[in-house]
């Protein structure tokens, strides 16, 4: 009689152990799936936030007084080619200022490319306007490129061209 009770008790304990084992396995699987899902969501959110940040930044940079056209203090909706060249010179010759801008904006590169009318593909300088690129902050590595169309004004010739303001943001 006592022996039978002992066997039954052992059996009950065994069943309880099995139930607990299955429960914990299910719990662990659920937790793993949940955390993986959360991790993926966080990664996607990060990329979305960066995407939003850089897309907004590329549009707001067109209003930066360092490069925006102005006539006697009145701003116009274009980028000044002479200011672009001057700004690039400042950034090239003053590493600390460049670092400050990079920290401020959190970007890897910044450039303006002339796309219409078609001009000679070369870096712009003070000597000629027959050029298509103003590399303000050069970057040759990988990165996501965000661009917006801009109007570029050449004060010496009083003409406008169409360009793209491009910023290079960090990859995922």
């Amino acid at each position, binding site marked *: 009689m006592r022996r039978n009770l002992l066997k039954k008790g052992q059996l009950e304990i065994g069943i309880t152990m099995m*139930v607990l084992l299955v429960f914990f396995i299910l719990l662990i699987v659920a937790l793993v799936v949940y955390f993986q899902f959360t991790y993926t969501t966080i990664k996607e959110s990060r990329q979305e936030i960066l995407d939003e940040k850089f897309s907004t930044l590329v*549009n707001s940079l067109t209003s930066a007084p360092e490069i925006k056209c102005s006539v006697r203090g009145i701003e116009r909706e274009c980028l000044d080619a002479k200011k672009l060249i001057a700004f690039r010179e400042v950034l090239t010759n003053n590493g600390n200022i460049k670092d400050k801008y990079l920290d401020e904006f959190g970007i890897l590169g910044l450039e303006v490319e002339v796309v*219409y009318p078609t001009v000679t593909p070369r870096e712009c300088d003070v000597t000629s306007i027959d050029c298509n690129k103003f590399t303000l902050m050069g970057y040759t590595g990988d990165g996501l490129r965000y661009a917006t*169309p*801009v*109007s570029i*004004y050449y004060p010496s*010739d009083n003409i406008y061209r169409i*360009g793209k303001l491009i910023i290079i943001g960090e990859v995922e």
Partner: protein
Amino acid sequence: MKKGQAEIFGLIFIVILLIFALIFFVRIKQSDDSSVTLRSSFRANNLMNAIMDVNLDYLDKTSLKELMKDCLDNPTKLNPNPPPQKIKSDICVAVEKDLTDIFKATLSEIEIYQFKGSLDTITYIELFNGVCDEGITASPVRLPRNYNFELKLCS
């Protein structure tokens, strides 16, 4: 397995399912495209502004805006070859080519545009590269003498 234990497992399964359903619901509900709209609006306005300002590399660097106004003033010409009929004027052909080149150079391949130029509500310039019913419209440019230019971007 006892009946009670089987029911507990069923309950756990249902609870887990409910949690996942809730997560998916919250995730779908949170998607918001207002910032995308705002960004496209910036792009459309920037592009419209650039088109209105640009000087061409021919015709003594005249502005595209002036060329488009000329096109709206003289949209057609008489076909010199028989049968005599009205065809698109040379200025309008040049305008359309320039605009197409600009859109090709500034927009990505997946972006759809629709550009209209009209005079006294009659549209003479109409360019598009696909169906663009719902999109972001740049602020229309209205010039004296009822010239009107509109740009819409879709993606």
